[in-house]
Structure formats: C-alpha cells, structure tokens
C-alpha cells in the first residue's frame, strides 16, 4: 500500500478557478521578497520580515482568498458552537500596519533561475528571495470516484477552512435523525493530526443535543488514533458512548458519491448519510509544480536553519508543505513558528548578517472534546547541529491530564493571539 501511494504521488493536478490580479506591483527600493500563500506560515513570515528589517525589505504576499479562514477552531463551526465569522481574519492589517503588499491572485509558475513568479492575472513579480507556503493539496488520484463531475461539491473534506466547512455543517443540519456521519482519515502524515478526532467529538456533541439517534463513524487508515489517543478515547467512552464508533486500519480506496458508499483496501463497503472524506495529502500544487517536493514527490525538504529548499536556491518553503522533522506536527502553531524562523533567516541573508544557528521553538495544540472542554499536546523543538534537523527536547512537552474547561478558555485565547501574531 505504501508503495502504491508512493507511485501515485507523481500526478500533478491543475489549479482551480483563476482570479485576475488588479494590483500594480513594483517600485520602491531595497531587497524584494515574494510570499506565496497567506496562511499561518506565509502571513507570519511576511509580517516579521517587514518588522525585523525595519521595513527595508519589500514584501509582496500573493493570496487568492479575500480573508484568512482558520482551520483551528473550524471544527467548532461544523459542530455549531462557532460561526465562520469567528474564524475569519482580514489581511488588511498586514498592509496597514506593516506595509506588506497583498496581491489577490493565483500563482501560475515559478522561474527559480530568473527569480520571477508569474501570476494567473498576468503580473510578473521578481524576487531576491521567494517564500512558498501553499499548505496542502489532496491526492485525489487515490480516490477515482472523487474525480467525477460534481463529486467534490457533494462529498466534503472540510480540511481547508472556508466554503467546505460551512457546507459540511449544512449537510449535518439537513441529515435526518438516525443517520450516520462517516469520516475517513488518511495515513499520517497529514495536516493537523488530532483534527479528525476533534471533529468527531464536535459532531457527536451536536448529535447528542439535536439528533440523539444518529451515529459518528470514524474510519481511520492508521493503526490507532494518531494524536492525544487516550484523551480522545476517554471522551468517546465517557461522553459519546453509543454515538461515536472508532474503526482503525480502514484505508479508503474509492468513493461512490451517488450511493454515498465508501470502499476500502481490506474492509467491506460502507454506506452513510453524510460522508466526510479527508483524502491523503501532499505539498500544495504550487510547490509540486515548481519541483520543490523532493521527498517521495510529496513533501518539500528544507534546511531547518533557514527553511531554504533543498531543491532550489533563494526559495524557502514553510508550513504544511515541508518534509517535517522528527516529532514535528503539521500544525498552524508550528507553521507560525516556521514563519518567524524563516523571516529572521531571510532578513539575515539579505542584509549580510549571521543566521541564527540555534532555532528553538514550540508547538501548542488544543482540541475541543466538547464545545467547552479541551485537551492539549505541547512540545519544544531545538536544532540539532549534528543531525541538521529539529529535534524535540527530551523531558519537555506533554499532554493535558484530562479534558478541562480552563483550557477551553486558553484555547480561544490562543486562537485570538496566534491569529493576531500572524496577521495583525
């Protein structure tokens, strides 16, 4: 199975709809940095390069979405205790406060030799250093039925916050009581390891209040729950007994959208009322198309001192697109930390000063097991000069002892603060 995945990852998918750029770009003096993608890593890098260069480095951020919509907390929108407005942040403070030029467009191509980014709207952006932070895209080639017309409009992944988040919420609200919500989880690594299990809790809480005869079926390709396992299992037993059923080693191989049927590598077919298929993931299309995904043609290998690509000079890759270091999760918090480490390195490289030889940063990840109780996992990561990678610090990090309401307050404060640190 692993080998089949490996072979199939080579397929390159085309970009989605195109939006034209209206901004005029250029002018000014000083070194130029272009950032592709305004998520947790890209937006943070753009902001901190401006801050730490005393606005001497010009930064252009290319982002097709009008607003930043946060994946963290988006499961609460699916469960119904938060709204899309709660997880949406505008990009305008990056411009107003920090002078980042934000261009609303898609990237067509990267010419790393000429150091030019070509946008779908026709604009060409030259750069001294490029930051590629497109997040993940899905390996749709592993699920033939999902490539049929309209399939992606009917079966949600909701693994990029936005229209899909809202659509999945609407599907759950429209589902009759007594129905089954079936969610498939891909083999790790994927974006946000505990996210699917949190989502199961959120949907189960909604069912327990609004549709008590309904069920949540978790179909996990992995051997076991990939993050916070004991804490999630306790929540499923204590709070959602008879609602949530967890099945491991269920690797989905196809989806029949018309009959809402899931097909698996080894297990019998399953039908459900609402399907939520979270497909296998890889680095974003832009990174793949630019030849940056050197690890199994799936993830982008980087130098962890600078986040410079191992495949292209003057090109840095951040966030969920990278080949992670040992113990490093694909999380929004970690992406924010990538952004700052890269920002410091880019400023140093463009001003001829020393790059920090000892990055140290941390990960904090909260999961809501209900709308008002939370569990966390935390870790500290430090550069290992011999291994040339980030390693978790022995004896540091850990989990919540049990789900608790105090950490639900901290979790929302974390969200507000990290959105501001990245975007305001």
């Amino acid at each position, binding site marked *: 199975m692993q080998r089949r995945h490996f072979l199939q990852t080579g397929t390159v998918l085309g970009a989605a709809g195109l939006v034209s750029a209206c901004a005029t770009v250029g002018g000014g003096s000083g070194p130029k940095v272009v950032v592709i993608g305004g998520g947790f890593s890209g937006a943070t890098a753009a*902001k*901190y390069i401006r*801050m*730490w260069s005393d606005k001497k480095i010009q930064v252009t951020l290319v982002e097709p979405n009008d607003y930043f919509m946060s994946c963290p907390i988006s499961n609460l929108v699916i469960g119904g205790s938060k709204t899309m407005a709660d997880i949406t942040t505008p990009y305008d403070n990056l411009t107003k406060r920090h002078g980042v030029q934000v261009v609303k467009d898609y990237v067509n191509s990267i010419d790393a030799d000429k150091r030019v980014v070509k946008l779908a709207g026709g604009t060409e952006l030259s750069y001294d250093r490029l930051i590629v932070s497109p997040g993940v895209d899905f390996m749709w080639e592993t699920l033939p039925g999902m490539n049929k017309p309209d399939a992606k409009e009917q079966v949600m992944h909701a693994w990029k916050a936005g229209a899909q988040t809202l659509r999945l919420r609407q599907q759950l609200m429209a589902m009759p009581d007594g129905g089954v919500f079936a969610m498939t989880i891909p083999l790790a690594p994927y974006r946000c390891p505990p996210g699917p299990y949190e989502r199961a809790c959120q949907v189960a809480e909604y069912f327990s209040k609004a549709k008590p005869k309904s069920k949540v079926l978790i179909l996990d390709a992995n051997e076991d729950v990939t993050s916070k396992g004991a804490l999630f299992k306790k929540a499923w037993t204590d709070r959602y007994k008879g609602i949530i059923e967890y099945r491991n080693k269920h690797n989905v191989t196809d989806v029949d959208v018309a009959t809402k049927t899931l097909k698996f590598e080894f297990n019998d077919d399953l039908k459900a009322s609402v399907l939520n298929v979270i497909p296998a993931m890889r680095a974003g299309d832009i990174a793949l198309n630019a030849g940056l995904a050197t690890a199994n043609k799936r993830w982008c290998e980087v130098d962890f001192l600078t986040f410079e690509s191992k495949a292209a000079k003057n090109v840095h890759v951040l966030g969920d697109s990278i080949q992670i270091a040992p113990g490093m999760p694909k999380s929004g*918090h970690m992406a*924010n*930390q990538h952004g*700052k*480490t890269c920002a*410091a390195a880019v400023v*140093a490289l463009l001003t001829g*000063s*020393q790059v*920090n*030889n*000892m*990055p*140290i*940063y*941390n990960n*904090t990840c909260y999961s809501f097991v209900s709308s008002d109780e939370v569990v*966390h996992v*935390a*870790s*500290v*990561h*430090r550069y290992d000069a011999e291994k040339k990678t980030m390693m978790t*610090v022995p*004896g*540091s*990090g*850990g989990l*919540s002892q049990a789900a*608790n309401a*105090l*950490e639900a*307050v*901290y979790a*929302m*404060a*974390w969200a*507000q*603060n*990290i959105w*501001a*640190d990245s975007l*305001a």
Partner: protein
Amino acid sequence: MNLKHTLAALTLAALSPLAQAQADPVQVRSWAASCSGCHGTEGRALPGMVSLAGADKDAMVKTMLDFKSGTRPATLMHQLAKGYSDAEITAIAGYFAAQKK
C-alpha cells in the same frame, strides 16, 4: 591543549551560556518570538493570555523556573519551560522586559 585544559575550557563554557546568549540579541529575539504565538507579537498579548512586554525580568525568570521545577502549577507552561535552559529563559525574559508595554 591537554586534557586538563580541555576540561577546564568545557567547564567554563558550561558556566557561561548566559554570556553567550546575551552576546547575540538577534538570536534572543528569535527565541522570544517562539513565545509570541500565544503571548502576542513582542509580548503584547490580547486578552486571555499574559502580556510579557515590559514585565519585570526577575519575576518572569522566577515564574519560568518555578514552572520548570514544578513548584508552580500550570496547564501546559511546565511542559514548555522544560524545553529551555535557565540561561535561555533569562535571556528571553530580558528581551520581553525591554519591550514597550
């Protein structure tokens, strides 16, 4: 350099990480930025998290060392504090103490 000298040099190096940390303010700024995801850019937090900007350096160091030793209860800061050396904590606290509130 003989063994005795090497050991002496190593001991000195072990005793002076603070001097090293203080020698590179840009490095300390990067370390401090790892706190700002929760505690706000340059330590100026939004409500719900503790602001570190302009706080008393010695008090911050004591709080972190108490988290590290377990004498101060916490939900997760005791787990993060254990990932930083005392010298790094002192340097980071110095950075935040120097920021505008």
